């Protein structure tokens, strides 16, 4: 029997459920082994009803996981089979199409039982540093080369962990301890969510989640539909070209607002790429949804109902709807550009709401260090995989400058340099803002950053580059100028490619400049005070102040001398 609860009680329960999933996510951060999870927060956690509809999701995490994971649980229910779901079970997959877009994301789902009856599911996803294969990068020609594939299966059956699975995983990855540790961390995180859910059900005398589930979904659906109904019924087309691996990629979307839904149609985007930058539809959808939600309904929590009105279409075998066995390891590169493309379209429907283009995809790289091979390596030289997450500048907003070196649309954090240098024999020689990289405008684009990386004495390494915007910088909006492009080379001047695995000999460093965001509005309209401030802080050079913003030389001199004498303290 389902007891009828008051409106006030349901409000309290909804709050509680959001707190439960938040706690689930925090538990993952505190028990995870991969730096990508514990330092960077590349994860997601959520609670689901018995049909696999998502009821609540932690705000901790990143949009690509958040929205992709919404669909995952129904795949688990179908694959495992409802008759085969038992108390104590834990399920696992890294299927790019039924999980969150590449083999490097492990998703785990735990059924939640209360007095012997299935009442819901908990799911969580984390980005792990290595899954074998060619390593994290775009070099594979098919999914088979990208690493170990774990189909949807039981990690634990009625509480007993599958040793065969553990053995196979251990035998196929570069950092087995770390990965197994992370698998346990994911299981722990669901377990903590489950325990707290049961406490809540006891406290409110619930037998199931039907009443509260309906309450959450109905309110969320109505709120989302109200926002959509308030928009003009129009269409807009947005396009963007990015580097791709060997050939440029075109992203194209037509966004159409209907009375009760918004459809994003990616017809006209590039075909599949030969390399692993293709994006499964689930991940494209995640970021298209994110872009529209952050623009029109930012405070409505993510759940099955609030995400449902955002529909997506894309022809099969395109860069935004890659199917098995296309390589997809770096699907985030295309995925992170989806919001800018959607914004380009949405600006034509509701002008003055969305930002200019930004750095878009994260400026990540992974280094595979090993003892030097050109001469005898010293004792203690070792192999190690180190992944770092870094960000360029975000696009300028209609009323605010872009954010300097800050991830958008991704929600991950960077790792502290001191922590990275403990993770392996790597040295980060430089990590600081890149002056003159923010696109000029009435509002300036966010600055990108410089990084320099090398190995400790006695080591050489491969760098797996995952950069874009080398040839296609972030464009400005409404008269704003483009941000600076990505640059990558070695300290002896030899050039490197923006993507792919590349060898760096003993003693050499890789020098990188990450892109800035595009500007918004005409630079001539930028307030003089802000130009002076940018010059004083060194966000822009004297040359840029003069040539782009039209500042007079005597004004420039006045600012620079005020800085020297300590009188410019803003």
């Amino acid at each position, binding site marked *: 029997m389902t007891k009828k609860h008051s*409106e*006030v009680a349901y*409000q*309290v329960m*909804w*709050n*509680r459920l959001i707190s439960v999933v938040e*706690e689930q996510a*925090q538990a993952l*951060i*505190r*028990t*995870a*082994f991969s730096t990508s999870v*514990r330092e960077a*927060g590349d994860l997601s956690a959520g609670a689901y009803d018995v049909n696999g509809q998502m009821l609540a999701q932690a*705000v901790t995490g*990143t*949009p690509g996981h958040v929205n992709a994971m919404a669909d995952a649980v129904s795949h688990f229910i179908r694959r495992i089979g409802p008759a085969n779901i038992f108390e104590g079970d834990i399920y696992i997959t890294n299927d790019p199409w039924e999980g969150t877009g590449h083999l490097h994301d492990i998703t785990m789902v735990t059924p939640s039982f209360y007095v012997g009856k299935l009442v819901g599911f908990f799911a969580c996803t984390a980005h792990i540093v290595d899954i074998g294969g060619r390593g994290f990068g775009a070099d594979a020609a098919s999914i088979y080369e990208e690493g170990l594939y774990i189909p949807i299966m039981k990690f634990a059956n009625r509480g007993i962990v599958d040793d065969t699975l553990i053995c196979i995983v251990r035998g196929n990855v570069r950092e087995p*301890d770390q990965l197994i*540790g992370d698998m346990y961390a994911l299981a*722990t995180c669901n377990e*903590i969510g489950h325990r707290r859910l049961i406490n809540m059900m006891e406290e409110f005398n619930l037998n199931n989640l039907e009443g509260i589930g309906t309450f959450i979904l109905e*309110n*969320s659906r109505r*709120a989302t539909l109200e*926002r959509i109904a308030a928009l003009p019924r129009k269409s807009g087309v947005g396009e963007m070209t990015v580097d791709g691996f060997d050939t440029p990629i075109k992203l194209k979307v037509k966004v159409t607002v209907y009375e009760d839904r918004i459809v994003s149609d990616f017809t006209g985007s590039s075909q599949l790429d030969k390399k692993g930058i293709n994006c499964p539809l689930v991940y494209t959808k995640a970021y298209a949804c994110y872009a529209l*939600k*952050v623009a029109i*309904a*930012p*405070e*409505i*929590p993510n759940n099955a109902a609030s995400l449902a009105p955002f529909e997506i279409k894309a022809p099969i075998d395109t860069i935004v709807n890659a199917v098995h066995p296309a390589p997809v390891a770096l699907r985030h590169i295309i995925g992170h550009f989806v919001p800018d493309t959607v914004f380009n379209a949405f600006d034509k429907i509701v002008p003055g*709401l969305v*930002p200019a283009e930004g750095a878009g995809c994260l400026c990540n790289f992974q280094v595979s260090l090993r003892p030097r091979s050109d001469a005898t390596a010293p004792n203690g030289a070792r192999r190690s995989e180190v992944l770092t*997450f870094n960000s360029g500048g975000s696009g300028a*907003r209609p009323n605010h400058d872009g*954010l*300097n*070196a800050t*991830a958008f649309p991704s*929600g*991950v*954090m*960077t790792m*502290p340099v*001191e*922590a990275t240098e*403990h993770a392996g024999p790597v040295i980060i020689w*430089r*990590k*600081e803002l890149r002056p003159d990289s923010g696109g000029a405008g009435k509002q300036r684009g966010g600055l990108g950053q410089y990084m320099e990386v090398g190995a400790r004495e006695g080591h050489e390494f491969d760098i797996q580059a995952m950069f874009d915007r080398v040839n296609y910088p972030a464009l400005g909006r409404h008269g704003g100028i483009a941000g600076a492009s990505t640059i990558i080379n070695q300290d002896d001047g030899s050039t490197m490619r923006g993507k792919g695995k590349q060898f760096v000999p003993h003693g050499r460093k890789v020098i990188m400049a990450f892109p800035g965001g595009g500007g918004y509005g005409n630079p001539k309209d930028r307030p003089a005070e802000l130009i002076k401030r940018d010059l*004083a*802080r060194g*966000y822009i050079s004297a040359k840029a102040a003069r040539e782009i913003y039209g500042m007079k030389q005597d004004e420039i001199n006045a600012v620079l001398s005020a800085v020297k*004498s*300590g009188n410019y*303290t*803003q």
Partner: protein
Amino acid sequence: MAKQSVRLGVDIGGTFTDVVLEVGNQTYSTKVLTTYIAPENAIIDGIQQVCTKANIQHSDINQIIHGTTLATNALIERRGAKTALITTEGFRDVIEMRTESRFEQYDLNLTLPDPLLPRQMRYTVPGRMDANGNELIPLTRADILPIVDEIATAGYQSVAIGLIHSYLNDTHEKLVRDVLAERVPDIMISLSSEVSPQMREYERFNTVVANAYIKPLMKSYLGRLEGRLQDEGINCSIFLMHSGGGIISIENAANFPVRLVESGPAGGAVFAANIAAKYGLDKVLSFDMGGTTAKICLIKNQTPKTSRVFEVARTYRFKKGSGMPISIPVIDMVEIGAGGGSLAHIDAMRQIRVGPESAGSEPGPACYGRGGARPAVTDADLILGRLDPNNFAGGSIKLYALLAENALKSELGDQLTMDATTSAFGLTEVVDENMANAARVHAVENGEDLSEYTMIAFGGAAPLHAGRLCEKLGVNRLLVPPGAGVGSAIGFLRAPFSFEANRSVYMTLKSFDPKKIKNILSNLKIEATAFVRNCDIVSPILAEFKVYMRYSGQGWEIPITLNENQAMNPNVTEFENRFIEDYTKLFGRPVEGMNIEITVWSVNATTPSENVSRVAEKINGETALIHCERNLFDPALAKFVNASVVLRDYMKSGSVTQGPSIITEDETTIIVPSSRNAIRQPDGCIDITRKI
């Protein structure tokens, strides 16, 4: 008059400066308005008042313990000194780039808080240490001199020095300091390797910058205070409460002012810990709710839980990540935007949301009749019969129920088709749930089960909500101590002399080196003890040892407490067992076959806590005199009930009132839900327990 101990506790808060004078067993307290321009004026004023009450001379005071929010306010309001940072080449922007992430992912117009120092005030020098503390690139005087000249020219008052990996090797930081001190002798200098020798450059650099930024201000204030007190004939020693819940000398406070940042709340936690000791309670949840925020802290074995890092000056709805991290020993507290003044609204999902926006004291909640139109928690409390409109704050503020009703109707009820009472019920349930959630999450993060805990509630709004919170959390017992309005200042008087020294040094259990461990911990003990000895030359000093451990590869350490023997005769099996035991408690199961490592070492030197005599607890007695009866809404029953009103001042020791009941006093009102009974204990605490 016979020589007896006369001690003074002073807490400078945002609105009030609380002064508590203790003469033997007698306590006298007062609240005066904080005087921002010269905070020492309010102190002198308050001292005057309590000395008159106690009928003693200023010169009779033996000791002053002081805590202040001035350091915190200077950071929040950006009123610090002209400060420069000298850091490692290539890392000029660490404090500006933060974590390169957005603390709120669903706001396109998000702005990040400015760093304390803008870019042009951050300088770099070459030289580099590696992750083992070995020198990769040397640093010479010649490298440093040009920067020192620039700093001299620009006329900075204070300089922070923060270099990469300096927590492992401070040679370069010290060299920069020496060259700087030679050239610019008057400049104040703070080293990251001294202020916060912990790994993670963003936190460490931000902490040393914050220290340097407030140092001139705090040094000058503390100097002036000493002078003013002497002028008033007070020549006793002055000590400062620090964030970790102990007290340090005025000189150490002036050198490490960042350690004072959470002194007020730390005093509150010590206050609760002292009540816990009086009642012999080993598991206590302290709950402090004022006008704007609520603070929750776990107190085990009469010792508040501590942590190594916290966040100050949050700029965005109290959101995690929107402030600046400060890595110093601190009492571990959760603070949320929930207080009597917190405002409610309806969001897009037609859900009631409460806080963190607050009505403050002007215009205040709608019921104050000062023009506030939006409903606050206090408005709901009034409508639900928890407050007496004619007797709020001792009758000094009249409350208008009609205004509260209108605000609740227009902002909440009309949209949800609820009447004012149901709206008020919804509002208080949401705010109570927010606080209960914060407490639950905090408990789970620490592997604790709150049903075994006793709550101690203080602060103006806490006793109104604590009863309901206990119901929600399954807490069986609640104590509301007397003097709750000046809890922090009383707490200062109960705090031991203490200082915690930390160091980041990596060691895996595979490379377990007992000799090195003994060495690290002994050195930390010497360092921490010196700080305490500086304050108290006679008392015995105890050392508390903690190591932070994790599985190799994890990013989150858990603190493992060691006794002196375990610390001085380190044994690898013992370390491993202690870790696995605590890890399993926190996270359910250990991870098989993984290496374990130690990352941070910590020694807290402290004088023994004073001997507390146990309260002779009463468990039953006569029924308290009922002053009148009033309708009170009971949220657990979701209806109005008839409650007896009892005056706290007239409650005799051991007298009992059965819930539903309302116990009133000038400072606050205590709500006893229908599910509980209350008894007045001999020390004045109201002891509220679940009916059997």
